């Protein structure tokens, strides 16, 4: 089970979201990931550690390099979670549609009896 709190916290930072967006296109080294940002490599490495601890990325050993890639299951776990939240919200508004339809019927009923709003 993924630590969703850690995962969402990791995503609360714009740099980390940008790193994930870059990794969504494929594996990348720390240097490649640091390039678009005006940040030192240690600062980027710190962001990578947060993402790694949250289970959203992993590293691989390639000679002296440690390329990072996305953990698909981690991203999917968040996606499923959000889908569930979204569903709860949709349930509310689907019910509200019914409430509004009932209100409309009552209003029409009153008009028939000659009452005004």
């Amino acid at each position, binding site marked *: 089970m993924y630590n969703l709190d850690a995962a969402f916290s990791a995503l609360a930072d714009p740099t980390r979201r940008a790193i*994930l967006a870059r990794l969504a296109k494929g594996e990348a080294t720390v240097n490649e990931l640091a390039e678009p940002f005006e940040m030192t490599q240690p600062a980027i490495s710190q962001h990578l550690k947060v993402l790694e601890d949250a289970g959203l990325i992993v590293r691989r050993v390639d000679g002296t390099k440690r390329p990072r890639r996305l953990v698909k299951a981690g991203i999917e776990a968040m996606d499923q979670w959000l889908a569930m939240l979204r569903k*709860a919200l949709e349930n509310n508004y689907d019910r509200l549609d019914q409430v509004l339809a009932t209100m409309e019927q009552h209003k029409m009923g009153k008009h028939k009896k000659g009452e005004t709003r």
Partner: protein
Amino acid sequence: MSNLTMNKLTLKTEGDTHIVVTRHFAASPEAVYRAHTDPKLIQQWLLGPEGWTMPVCINEAKPGGKFRYEWVNGKGSKFHITGEFLELEPHRRIVHVERMHLPDPTPDNHVETRFHADGTGTLMTMRMTLPDAKTRATMLSTGMERGMEASYVRLEGML
């Protein structure tokens, strides 16, 4: 556009602290506003996942007025939200703050809900502002586990 598309919910994060939800309704802004402020109506729809009900719904819909919503799931779980209304422009706009009690109160969520006439119906836009990015993250991952409230994110094109 089909009704299905028209009524589709959108939810997204904005910046580091906002969550924005939009939804179209086939009713007038007056009716949608009333369904958001009349306790008898709120109790019928603001329920979240299957199985939850809202036995307590106190709502003083006036500036400075307080509200309290209590939910139970019939299996021993319950929680509540308290809040205050800051601004109410009838049929157009509601501004309030709220917090969940789980049982400790979560940081205040500042919510602005707007109702715009849109064709024969209403477009609702609900914009939540959390105190900081960390709070928004916690709200998304744990606060909303309790069911309700609004929720969301399509993480800025990423997920």
